């Protein structure tokens, strides 16, 4: 029926999904704890998510990120704590009254309904008139670039198409909060990359508060306004992608996101020293019993001439060079035996000019890239 209306124009789309923009809701999680026997799936989690924000819960499997999402959706009942959507306390509200959109890792598209049947389902539940359902379903499918797919059966769709239908179904009833549980994990890399951009731009267009769960750090960095790194049921760090990468709060976050070399350092008076060598660092070092120098491989320079002023230098012996297509990785051994990895872009001639195994080399690290972090595991 909705097909008869013809493909929706951009304006129609905006009208159909307009209300969401202005009414996104903030989420406030406070002191939420969920235990399974002796295991803390969530350990006193508190988290403020701003209205219209794209927040990613990132962590290894079993970290508690999915449990937190299930608490938000209402499928998991926590032991205690508070959950507010806007001003409304919803911790005891059953899932069907929470009015949040959600996509599932398995997509959970109803196999006995067509694409249009799936997308229209939340509207039918809300007793939206038939004609309006058709219109809004068509609009939602246009939004996810599946116009004309309404009559298809679910098993006739590819993985990427299913993902889009799941998104259309989650947004068609204009929820003010959207939850996404590893939505892209079943897709191949190329499609995943494409969908990341699409989901991000969809979020920009619709503006609903989005909580996104993934274990893929690159995906998290690409898409999020802020990322909450979760481990052992606790939030390790909540920060923007850039801060998370450049100023990890602890070794777990630094290790989980990106590659790094960690060198043990100590505080000597006002200075931070590595093997008696005082280090220049831009950000102040945290107050912690043990400290580590975190060096991102792509921030390390292979020094050939005189280093820049204040640059920290390290004497090392070159080991193997690993060719990775767009970049190379050079491993070098420091005096104390630690391996420091250096990543460089592969351009004309760069690989051929690299030192060979056993060459003595000098590595440099700028003060703003010399990040001192809390050395404890968590």
């Amino acid at each position, binding site marked *: 029926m909705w097909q008869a209306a013809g493909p929706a124009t951009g304006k129609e789309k905006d009208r159909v999904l307009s209300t969401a923009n202005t009414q996104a809701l903030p989420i406030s999680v406070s002191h939420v704890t969920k235990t399974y026997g002796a295991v803390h799936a969530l350990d006193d989690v508190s988290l403020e998510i701003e209205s219209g924000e794209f927040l990613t819960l990132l962590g290894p499997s079993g970290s508690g990120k999915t449990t937190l999402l299930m608490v938000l959706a209402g499928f998991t009942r926590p032991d205690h704590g508070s959950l507010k959507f806007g001003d409304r306390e919803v911790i005891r509200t059953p899932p069907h009254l*929470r009015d949040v959109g959600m996509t599932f890792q398995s997509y959970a598209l109803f196999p*006995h309904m067509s694409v249009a049947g799936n997308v229209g389902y939340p509207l039918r539940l809300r007793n939206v008139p038939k004609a309006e359902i058709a219109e809004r379903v068509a609009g939602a499918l246009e939004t996810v670039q599946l116009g004309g797919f309404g009559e298809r059966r679910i098993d006739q769709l590819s993985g990427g198409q299913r993902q889009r239908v799941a998104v259309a179904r989650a947004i068609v009833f204009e929820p003010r909060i959207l939850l996404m549980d590893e939505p892209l994990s079943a897709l191949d890399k190329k499609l995943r990359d494409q969908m990341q951009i699409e989901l991000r731009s969809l979020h920009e267009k619709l503006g609903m508060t989005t909580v996104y769960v993934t274990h893929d750090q690159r995906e998290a960095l690409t898409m999020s306004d802020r990322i909450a790194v979760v481990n052992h049921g606790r939030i390790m760090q909540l920060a923007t992608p850039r801060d998370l990468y450049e100023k990890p709060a602890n070794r777990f976050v630094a290790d989980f996101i990106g590659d790094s070399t960690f060198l043990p350092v100590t505080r000597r008076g006002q200075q931070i020293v590595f093997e008696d060598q005082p280090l220049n660092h831009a950000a102040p070092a945290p107050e912690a019993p043990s400290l580590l120098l975190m060096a991102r491989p792509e921030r390390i320079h292979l020094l050939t001439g005189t280093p820049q002023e204040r640059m920290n230098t390290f004497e090392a012996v070159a080991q193997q060079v690993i060719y990775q297509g767009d970049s190379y990785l050079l491993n070098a051994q420091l005096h104390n035996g630690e391996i420091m990895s250096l990543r460089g872009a592969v351009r004309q001639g760069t690989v051929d000019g690299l030192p060979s195994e056993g060459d003595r080399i000098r590595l440099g690290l700028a003060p703003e890239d010399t990040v001192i972090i809390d050395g404890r595991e968590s």
Partner: protein
Amino acid sequence: MQAADTPQRSYETPVPSGMNAAGLRRDARLERLKLFGLSSPALLLVLVILVIPVGWLFYVSFIGANGQFSLENYERMITRKSYARIFVTTFQVSLLTTGLCILIGYPLAYFLSQLPSRLASLCLITVLLPFWTSLLVRTYAWLVLLQKRGLVNDWGISLGLWEEPIKMVHNMTGTLIGMVHIMLPFLILPLYSTMKSINRDYMNAAANLGASPRRAFWNVFFPLSTPGLFAGSLMVFILCLGFFVTPAVLGGGRVIMVSMQIVSNIELFVNWGAASALGVVLLVLTMAILWIASRFLRLDQIAGGGH
């Protein structure tokens, strides 16, 4: 596609075209033959235990009392009203049993499918327990329980629930109780496995989209469980059609089903034809139901797809 094929073919030409071709073809043929050889005992078995006896049944049903070809066995079924009544009873009992099995079995299977696996398998064993005891023993057990001075009436009266013994056996009620008890596992097993395979995410998704538990059940869970429900119901229904022992023992001679009439016809008439004709009619009716059911099922799928 075509354009892409043409240059490829030219690349192949340097390789001798007939290389090993005959041998490879022979291997393929041999493999097919072996496969057929492996399946032929099964085919033969089907022929011997299914096709030949059923064919014989059809043939014999057209042989009259005098040993000549005759339609008398079928004519009798038309002229004597009792045969039509027996078929009606048979279908009535089968339908009621199937319906009761669904009413009792569906909630039970649903309950089982929602239990943790270990507990569910324990409960499944109790459901399957009836399979391990003899049909006759179970049927007589119901007789002992339900008769006038049976356990149920004794307790009911001594607890003051009712005063006069209730007639629960030697009638349709008793027959249905016994048959439902015996048939229930046949419904629950396929239903349980279908329900177990329904991803929990579906119900969560429905709830998330705004469906109350009741609506989520009817809109999502129930439609997805229908293949199992249908398979189980059909199995129960077909098995009921040919049932003998339970209606014979618990029906008190007042619930007469086709299988019972087949037995009395063998004893009564001087040839096998009379009994065979009953078997043929039951077989044909059953096939017709299966055919209609399969069409219904296919229609259902299409309807479900275009929801």
